[in-house]
């Protein structure tokens, strides 16, 4: 079974090569069918491997098994979390392709294969990253998914905004990748190893951490946190999500950003967890501070948006913060919770983007204010959108709710408030959109005058992604979000799923020695209900009394940080790296 692990990368790559080969001569339906079939086949493979991942599968590419404990080859790790992420990626990819089936106007004309080929390459890169057990190999797949993501984001080159969003994305993420590569180089210089577990072992053999280990830690984490869109590395994400085609947004927000968090978790557990790595207290401090900051800023900025795609993008940032807080506990319970949370979030967030795409294709706008009451006829979409919002809030029995409650228990204390508030505010913003756009509740929002309005990205005047605005919503475009939401619901409701996740996490981190039990608790359910009620309350107040919760003038400096100027974002990236270094500095000073 373990020999099949590299096929998770090879199969979508072969599909992409085939599509690039015949893409100019085959009809569009054929290219799309091949894309869906190959990505779904990879998904089936990932699920089969996942079911066989206990004990974890370890494969040496090229058959370079270790001799006397050392290998020159590349190790692939098919444990529960890695294969789980690969399966999540591979299930979401056919969903995104099915969503764009026949409706998405995928230029260039006469090259029908290019869009599905790029999506398959994206899938291959993400799968490769998920199962990488070698730090340099992880970097290679990290780069592949980045390169494809830039191209997919800028897909609609006719619009200047799309080009700018993709360029910002490319500049910031490439700098993150350089940081990652530099960190790998430092660790390699010290240890002479590239496999993550081997690096960890050699670091332990060397002695307590010094400046080199600290720099390696900071640089590697910078790269991964840029991908995870943690504050202050997050600025690229809203700009990219606002312009990327909807199926691409589903993948970016649903799994790619989460892979950054997954990478952080993987690296912390394998490279830096021993006595030669960084002390737990320092890692915890760094992740807790960045996580709380990310959750707070993400939630606040989410509330202030009227461009629905940007709003959802900020909600992803807020949730990244919550994930970072969870893995920042460095406990098995925290990992269990985040794993469940990520699965639930992927379904919910992708579904919300899918619904927003329908609005864009039907009305040529994603502006909450312009769309006021216009989507009344779309009852089915309204139900899906609202269900997605409730899932985001953490309404039991969604997978998000179970994941959130387990993580809340793991972090404990005052940080629980961060979870309740961040999920309530982001879900409240989505519910507010639902109430205004689908139900036409409340007064029609007035345009802000003067200085404030100039800084706002409204989301009106966008081009539909279909050839002409839809008069009727195709069944695929509503079926996909429905299935995704059902999946998110199943992640929390299907008995045994949570236990399977907990078992997989335990086997991956403690070789199954420490067992945790993951289940609904009365407190968890109560907190989920509190978040949901709070979200509904916030949305109700915002709709009925818009002035009460409108962005105050003192929030303007915060909003202006998202300036669209790539130089600003690079400056923040540098600051973020330094902050990370300062947060983890005590490790070296005391050690």
């Amino acid at each position, binding site marked *: 079974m373990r*020999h099949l*692990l*590299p*096929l998770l*990368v*090879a199969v979508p*790559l*072969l599909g*992409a*090569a085939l599509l*690039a*080969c015949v893409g*100019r001569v085959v009809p569009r339906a054929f290219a799309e069918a091949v894309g869906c079939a190959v990505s779904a086949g990879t998904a089936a493979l990932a699920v089969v491997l996942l079911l066989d991942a206990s004990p974890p599968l370890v*494969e040496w*590419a*090229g*058959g*370079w098994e270790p001799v006397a404990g050392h290998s*020159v*080859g*590349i190790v692939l790790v098919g444990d529960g979390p890695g294969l789980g992420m690969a399966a999540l990626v591979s299930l979401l990819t056919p969903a995104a392709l099915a969503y764009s089936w026949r409706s998405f106007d995928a*230029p*260039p004309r006469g*090259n029908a294969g290019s869009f599905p*080929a*790029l999506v398959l*390459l994206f899938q291959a*890169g993400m799968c490769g990253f998920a199962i990488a057990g070698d730090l*340099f*190999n992880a970097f*290679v*797949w990290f*780069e*592949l998914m980045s*390169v*494809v993501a830039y*191209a997919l984001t800028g*897909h609609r*080159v*006719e619009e200047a905004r799309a080009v700018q969003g*993709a360029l910002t994305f490319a500049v910031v993420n490439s700098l993150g990748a350089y940081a990652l590569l530099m960190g790998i180089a430092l660790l390699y*210089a010290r*240890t*002479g*190893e590239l496999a993550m577990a081997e690096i960890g072992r050699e670091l332990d053999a060397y002695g307590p951490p*010094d*400046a*080199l280990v*600290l*720099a*390696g830690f900071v640089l590697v984490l910078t790269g991964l946190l840029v991908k995870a869109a943690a504050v202050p590395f997050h600025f690229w994400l809203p700009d990219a999500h606002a312009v990327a085609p909807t199926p691409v947004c589903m993948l970016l927000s649903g799994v790619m950003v989460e892979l950054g968090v997954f990478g952080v978790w993987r690296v912390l557990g394998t490279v830096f967890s021993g006595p030669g790595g960084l002390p737990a207290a320092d890692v915890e401090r760094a992740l807790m501070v960045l996580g709380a900051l990310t959750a707070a800023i993400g939630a606040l900025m989410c509330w202030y948006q009227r461009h629905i795609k940007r709003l959802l993008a900020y909600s992803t940032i807020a949730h990244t913060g919550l994930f970072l807080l969870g893995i920042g506990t460095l406990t098995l319970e925290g990992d269990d919770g985040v794993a469940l949370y990520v699965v639930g979030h992927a379904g919910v967030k992708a579904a919300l983007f899918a619904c927003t795409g329908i609005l864009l294709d039907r009305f040529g706008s994603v502006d909450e204010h312009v769309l006021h009451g216009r989507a009344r006829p779309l009852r089915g979409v309204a139900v899906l959108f609202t269900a997605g919002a409730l899932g985001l809030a953490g309404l039991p029995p969604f997978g998000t709710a179970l994941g959130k409650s387990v993580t809340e228990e793991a972090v404990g204390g005052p940080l629980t408030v961060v979870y309740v508030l961040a999920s309530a505010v982001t879900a409240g913003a989505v519910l507010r959109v639902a109430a205004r756009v689908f139900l036409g509740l409340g007064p029609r929002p007035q345009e802000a005058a003067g200085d404030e309005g100039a800084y706002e990205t409204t989301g009106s005047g966008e081009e539909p992604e279909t050839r002409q605005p839809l008069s009727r919503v195709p069944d695929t475009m509503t079926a996909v979000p429905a299935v995704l939401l059902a999946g998110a619901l199943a992640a929390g409701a299907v008995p045994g799923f949570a236990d399977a996740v907990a078992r997989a996490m335990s086997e991956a981190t403690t070789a199954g020695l420490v067992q945790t039990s993951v289940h609904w608790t009365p407190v968890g359910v109560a907190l989920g209900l509190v978040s949901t009620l709070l979200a509904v309350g916030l949305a109700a107040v915002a709709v009925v009394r818009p002035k009460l919760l409108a962005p105050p003038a003192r929030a303007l400096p915060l909003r202006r940080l998202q300036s669209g100027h790539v130089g*600003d974002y*690079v*400056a923040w990236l*540098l600051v973020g*790296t*330094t*902050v990370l*270094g*300062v947060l983890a500095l005590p490790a070296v000073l005391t050690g």
Partner: protein
Amino acid sequence: MNPRTRLWLVATGGAGLAALLVAACLRLPRFGGDRHPYGDRAVHASLERHTANTVASVNFDQRAFDTLGEMTILFAAVLGCVVLLRQTRDEHRAHPEPADVARPVRRYALLVLPVALLTGLYVVAHGQLSPGGGFQGGVVAATALHVLYLGADYRALERVRPVGAYEVGDALATSAYLVTGVAGLIGGTAFLANTLLPYGTFNTLSSGGTVPLLNAAVGMEVACAVVVLLAGFLDQAVEIVDEGEDDDRAGDGHHHEERGK
């Protein structure tokens, strides 16, 4: 953010990062040390499989899975460029005019072209024996074709460079690498395992098992990819003009420097 604030942020962040890097570099192993755990193992493994160039052995055998990723990054970047640099709805294509080239330039170019092409192919073919290989040789071969643009004009280049065919070549070369990998899985022990072919005689062209095959696949992929990539950018500069823009922008097919201003 005003430029002043931005400068402050860059200075603060940059200073922190610089301090971190300097502190880390002071802790690097000394230059000229004799401890090379990976290098020793890699040379040993390379000699065991009769691959004279250890770098090629690392690239196409020991860490061939990384190379798969690297070649697909190029493949994806080229596909992405083809998509992004397409002729959009508000652009149209102008035909480049024939260009006058000074006779010595033309003669020199026609002389250099075959030599450069042959050099590229040589570098690819000897990748497993001497420095070089698919990546380097592919770039040399691809740029050799573009000497025609300097020696003649854009239309001459277009004649030897049907972009569609090179796109297919790019995809086929990538498939060839993957198929070799899968063959290793089916017929051998693991994906990309170099156990199918005899390792041959040390320091001959056919030595190293699948190393020459993967090397050739990468050479073809890189050559095709660079041709397609340059074609995309040259098309934007020479042929594709905005709607309403005067056709004389297309001029003699040599005006791309002008556009770069």
